[in-house]
């Protein structure tokens, strides 16, 4: 009789784990009370013109936006992803929210609302340079539609490195922006790219001149604050010949019952022998345990390795968002260029993620590596979708893909949809995927040594994701590991 009782006890404690962990609070879910100038909801050519006017943009950029908007009108929402996306009312969203402008009375641009400062402090993003660790990172802080502050701008400029918000870049370096904007992600690329091109607000612009190694990590922190708004950031990174930069991106949003839309574009241009490392820890509000609320994250990220021996590396830890639709890609057109994609995607409760990469080999001897680790728990759906394409002229192209899925719980889904289109006989392409749950043996081994099931799962999962986490810069790696333990241990195998 003792045996079943034991089992019951176990089951109960297991359930407690599950409950306590799935109910884990999203600690970035607060809202900042700050006067925000929000334009009326709705999307029209008029709105596009208003956004452009607010940012004081030149004619060519307005034209670019209008072209994109008109093209977007002809498109329909894509249905191919393994996602259930509720219908989005694009007329119910405000496309521009500016927390830096007080409604009454003009203020100087440099003066930041102390509430906004406090917000970023609370998020652990120091906006005061003296507070940053020596040799720390330069931050571009974006709240809603506006870049609040960019730190270490002057220090970087001494080396010729441009790091500022994209709005500022449009004013200060129009030639550079004009040359590269939309050159990697055309406004006709997809539905959300067209939308973003029409209404994009702030994001970061980075230019690393020839032969320069960026002395510190550059980072952008995106924060959604205002309700009923969407965030449409745009980031453009250009690494000129023989340069190097490591760039980090972080993001959070308040807890709200309604869904918020985030549709970003990141474009990266990598020239001869240059190297760009782009890391993301995505922690948008994922919605509550019942699947209510959360951010819809529809992002187009693409890098173009134009130069010979260039290298682009994407690392992402995806833990947030109610729906993630994101495929950071590499176009490898320079000979000997390399693309890398390391990803950990975690979904819990009712989260849905359809994420992966595209590696497009066009140049000779191009190499790409894809390591993707999906972890699904609760009632979530987690898909890897990837394309490896080898063009006719890409002699000696080499790809290695590995995508593993871990299932915690019997109500979640883990899927892999890899595509391989090979048009060159000298290509070597490998794809491997496995799906499994945490093995009983591993758990038993840990239990036997006095490690609680909960901790054991944490250990195993961390080990499973280590390959990717190790690719992150140190500060991010610590953060990512913490995030994993929060969003992950949703169930006991």
């Amino acid at each position: 009789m003792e045996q079943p009782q034991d089992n019951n006890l176990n089951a109960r404690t297991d359930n407690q784990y599950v409950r306590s962990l799935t109910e884990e609070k999203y600690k970035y879910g607060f809202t900042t009370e700050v006067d925000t100038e929000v334009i009326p909801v709705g999307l029209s050519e008029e709105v596009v013109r208003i956004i452009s006017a607010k940012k004081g943009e030149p004619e060519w950029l307005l034209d670019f936006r209008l072209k994109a908007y008109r093209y977007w009108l002809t498109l329909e929402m894509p249905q191919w992803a393994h996602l259930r996306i509720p219908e989005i009312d694009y007329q119910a969203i405000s496309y521009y929210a500016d927390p830096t402008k007080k409604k009454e009375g003009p203020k100087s641009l440099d003066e930041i609302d102390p509430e906004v400062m406090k917000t970023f402090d609370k998020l652990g993003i120091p906006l005061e340079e003296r507070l940053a660790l020596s040799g720390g990172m330069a931050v571009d802080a974006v709240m809603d539609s506006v870049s609040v502050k960019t730190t270490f701008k002057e220090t970087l400029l001494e080396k010729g490195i441009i790091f500022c918000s994209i709005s500022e870049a449009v004013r200060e370096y129009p030639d550079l922006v004009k040359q590269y904007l939309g050159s990697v992600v055309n406004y006709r690329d997809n539905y959300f790219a067209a939308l973003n091109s029409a209404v994009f607000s702030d994001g970061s612009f980075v230019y690393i001149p020839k032969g320069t190694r960026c002395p510190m990590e550059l980072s952008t922190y995106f924060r959604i604050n205002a309700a009923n708004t969407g965030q449409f950031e745009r980031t453009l990174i250009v690494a000129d010949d023989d340069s190097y930069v490591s760039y980090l991106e972080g993001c959070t949003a308040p807890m709200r019952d309604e869904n918020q839309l985030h549709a970003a574009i990141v474009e990266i241009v990598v020239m001869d022998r240059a190297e760009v490392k782009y890391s993301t820890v995505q922690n948008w509000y994922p919605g509550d345990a019942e699947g209510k609320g959360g951010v819809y994250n529809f992002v187009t990220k693409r890098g173009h390795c134009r130069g010979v021996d260039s290298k682009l590396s994407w690392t992402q830890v995806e833990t947030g968002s109610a729906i993630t639709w994101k495929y950071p890609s590499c176009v490898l057109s320079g000979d000997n260029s390399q693309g890398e994609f390391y990803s950990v995607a975690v979904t819990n409760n009712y989260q849905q993620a359809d994420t992966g990469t595209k590696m497009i080999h066009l140049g000779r001897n191009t190499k790409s590596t894809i390591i993707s680790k999906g972890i699904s728990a609760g009632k979530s759906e987690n898909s890897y979708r990837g394309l490896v394409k080898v063009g006719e002229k890409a002699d000696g192209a080499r790809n290695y893909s590995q995508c593993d899925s871990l299932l915690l719980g019997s109500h979640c889904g883990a899927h892999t949809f890899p595509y391989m289109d090979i048009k060159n006989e000298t290509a070597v392409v490998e794809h491997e995927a496995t799906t499994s749950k945490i093995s009983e043996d591993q758990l038993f081994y840990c239990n036997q040594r006095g490690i609680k099931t909960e901790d054991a799962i944490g250990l195993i999962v961390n080990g499973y994701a280590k390959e990717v986490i190790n690719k992150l810069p140190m500060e991010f790696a610590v953060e990512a590991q913490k995030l994993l333990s929060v969003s992950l241990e949703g169930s006991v195998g």
Partner: protein
Amino acid sequence: MNNINNSNNITPRGQQAPSLRGRAGGEAQYLSLYRECRELIARHSSEVMNALRDEAYGHLEQAGFPTKRVEEYKYTDVEALFAPDYGVNINRLDIPVNPYDAFKCDVPNMSTSLYFVVNDTFYNRALPKATLPKGVILGSLKELSAQYPELVARHYGQLARTEDDAITALNTMLAQDGLLLYVPKGVVVEKPIQLVNILRADVNFMVNRRVLVIIEDNAQARLLACDHTTDEVDFLATQVIEVFVGRGASFELYELEESTPRTTRLSNLYVQQEVDSRVHINDITLVGGVTRNTTRVALAGRGAHIDLCGMAIADKQQHVDNHTFIDHAVSDCTSHELYKYVLDDEATGAFAGKVLVREGAQHTDSQQTNRNLCLTRQARMYTQPQLEIYADDVKCSHGATVGQLNEDALFYMQQRGISFVEARQLLMRAFVGEVIDGVGLEALRDRLHHLVEKRFRGELGKCGDCTVCK
């Protein structure tokens, strides 16, 4: 679209407006053919088969042929394949053929019960002397479905749902005959059954063939189906095979295509497996024009096991597209999938394999492998191994590779006096050997090795030394 009429002349059906064809719906000419010849089609078929035609017509009209934007047909342009004019033998005219003349057996020394299907008609004039075990029914689907209407109606069209696939809908709408194999409970058919599908016509010709296989509980059978084309005209053959495998039953199906570069084969194979059943399928494409094989396996009973293998050797402009779907609907099933392609010249290969593990299908063990050799710059390979998993206690893996022959191995052999050409062939044969070695019939296995070797040397795999040809 032509219909062969009584005078055995091929006459165009007259007022067919060319505008009905083309991008805006290549199915229109087939729909109008059905509308015009509905009575005729029905008269030369059986009631069971006729019962589903109207519904199939509706589904085809509704869905139309898939365009290249449809994910399932991304790499095979079905619309273009159906666009040309083909003759259709709706009147069931006897096409003069002696299958023994037309067909040179490729599998000698294998004692099989040999049957022929000429175009889509079961050839019942030269039935093999070998008798099948008692209770086993094999013969013309048209005739047998009139004889056993209940048995056939219970199964016909049950797996091949016309709403899901336009080719299945077209086939159901137009197919008038084919083959039925029924093995009752507990009966073991020792001798493999060989079915030779012969395409024979003097004009460009369309064939809609239908096969129904029912293997009842604890029964066993093995079926070898070979596709051959005897004439140098354009053929378009659609084929729908439905296979029901009962509790504890075992079934092996080998499909071997050796047609001509002018033959298009669109084959949809549906399999449903009950508790503890075992199925082995091996789909081999050696010579053909455009080949599209869709295989859908439903593992509906616990403990069912499927081995799904395939291989393609393609050259010139050949196109081979294998689409597989394995549905793990219940727990404790296993599936092993292995597809290998060797692509030469300007050949195109496509493979899409999806494994679905439904919620509750615990202890599923599924492996999927797709390996491809591209021998020339112009050869193209598209591969999509996919997993969709909704259960946590499962072991699933898939792997896909595209590459070339190992240079070190080639060098090693050349160093030891083996010519480059020979070394290359050795490696290619070893590459596909893995698929062939899974074949359960020894004689067939040997023959396949031989055929593949010949195929790699560019010779057609015809022989002249078996009993059939004498």
